[in-house]
């Protein structure tokens, strides 16, 4: 009993140390000082929550935390992140967190419907974050939640008309497009790439319009007022 407690305490301590190391690694990765890292952490978590909500998954906050924990673990393990934009890496991990969830749900459903098959399938190891995304899984997973939705449905799902949200969508689809376009030799992938390119272009056009609206709202000078003022000045000066 004592021995068990000792092992348990030591195990807990090791796990606590591990968590502390992971946290430290994440903070160091996110920014040179804790304040900046904190800000970035909050921003990433918020975007992840929105991403999971957007995919229609329950307990989005828990999934966001799980994603961050996995990234922290990877960083603490010394994995060099290849993503230039750290959020893209979080997105990749989030994709796999949601995939796992969906796979688990499917297994559970299968278990209810056909217990013997479910036993076999439960032997399948839980997939960790793979080094490269597999296009077929990626495509089938996102086609249903994202690509098949019309753009006007995506925008409110992503939180209104703000630029960062549209940018988020375009970025995500762009990332997947980049992954798929490397596989154009595969005829099925080729068709997927074609469809995705059209989809990406449509979203980019919407994003561009939103950007223009935002830009215009920041401008001070109104050209119409300028033209009116010039016309009035010319009229006044022509009067003697």
């Amino acid at each position, binding site marked *: 009993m004592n021995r068990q407690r000792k092992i348990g305490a030591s195990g807990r301590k090791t796990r606590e140390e591990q968590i502390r190391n992971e946290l430290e690694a994440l903070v160091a990765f996110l920014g040179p000082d804790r304040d900046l890292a904190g800000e*970035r952490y909050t*921003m990433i978590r918020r975007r992840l929550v929105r991403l999971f909500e957007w995919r229609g998954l329950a307990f989005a906050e828990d999934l966001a935390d799980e994603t961050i924990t996995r990234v922290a673990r990877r960083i603490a393990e010394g994995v060099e992140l*290849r993503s*230039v*934009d*750290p*959020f*893209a890496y979080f997105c990749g991990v989030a994709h796999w967190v949601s995939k796992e969830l969906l796979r688990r749900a499917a297994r559970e459903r299968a278990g209810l419907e056909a217990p013997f098959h479910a036993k076999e399938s439960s032997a399948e190891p839980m997939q960790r974050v793979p080094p490269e995304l597999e296009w077929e899984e990626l495509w089938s997973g996102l086609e249903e939640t994202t690509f098949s939705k019309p753009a006007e449905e995506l925008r409110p799902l992503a939180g209104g008309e703000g*630029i*960062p949200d549209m*940018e988020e969508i*375009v*970025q995500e689809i*762009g*990332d997947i497009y*980049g*992954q798929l*376009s*490397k596989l154009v030799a595969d005829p099925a992938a080729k068709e997927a790439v074609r469809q995705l390119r059209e989809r990406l*272009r449509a979203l*980019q*056009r919407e*994003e*561009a*319009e939103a*950007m*223009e609206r*935002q*830009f*215009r709202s*920041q*401008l*001070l*000078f*109104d*050209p119409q*007022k*300028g*033209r009116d*003022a*010039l016309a*009035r*000045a*010319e009229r*006044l*000066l022509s009067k003697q």
Partner: protein
Amino acid sequence: MTRLLPPVTRPSREVISRRHLPPVTGAYSAYRACLRWDFGFSCAFCLLHESDIASYGVSGWGFMHVEHFVPRSSDPSRINDYENCFYICGRCNRARGKKMPRAGGPILLNPCSRAWGEHFEAVADEIRPLAEDRDAAYTCDTYDFNDPAKVRIRRMRRVTINQCRRFLDRVRRLHEALLDRAENEGDTEAVELAWEIQELRRQAYWDLLRFQAIPPDHDPVCRCGKSTHLTLPDALEEQTWSLLS
């Protein structure tokens, strides 16, 4: 004297020459200041300037990235090679990802060894490859030079600068005439109109100042430690203009 961006940045007929040579470090991110100056705060590929992108509130991780022409995954030994690092906008970087040209196919053009003006032209807010230039077409496609957002950003710069400039050019003489009339004849309508125009001029100046060729947050020092390198590349400098000119 504040230099402003041209309404349209034309691809240069000269190769971008690197003037900075930072000491090799263990982290390519340390080259950022040198890269900003070497590439004139502009994307080496699609020619968008930091000032173009900053207006859209894109912030956070930095809207400009460091691109590895030979991707890090293809040749890890070149990760911290300054010659392999380019200043690039986030959209170009994402568009390319880790794409590498296939053997025997068209090649990716390098802005430090090819003059962009010999391969591309600026047409209607797009950077288009010259006809039958397969390498240029491939490069344009890989970095997606003309994604709708980039085209719109170029258009907004062109339209804004032209509108403000046209107004300021026309208004200068009229404004002076109005002030003379107000002073000599005590015309109250002229006084009011002169005030209104003064305010419009101020607004137009402020809008133009969004497009400073050297952004207000430029790095006053870089890893090279030489102040003589802190200038715009000639290709961009000769296209800039001043409000006083």
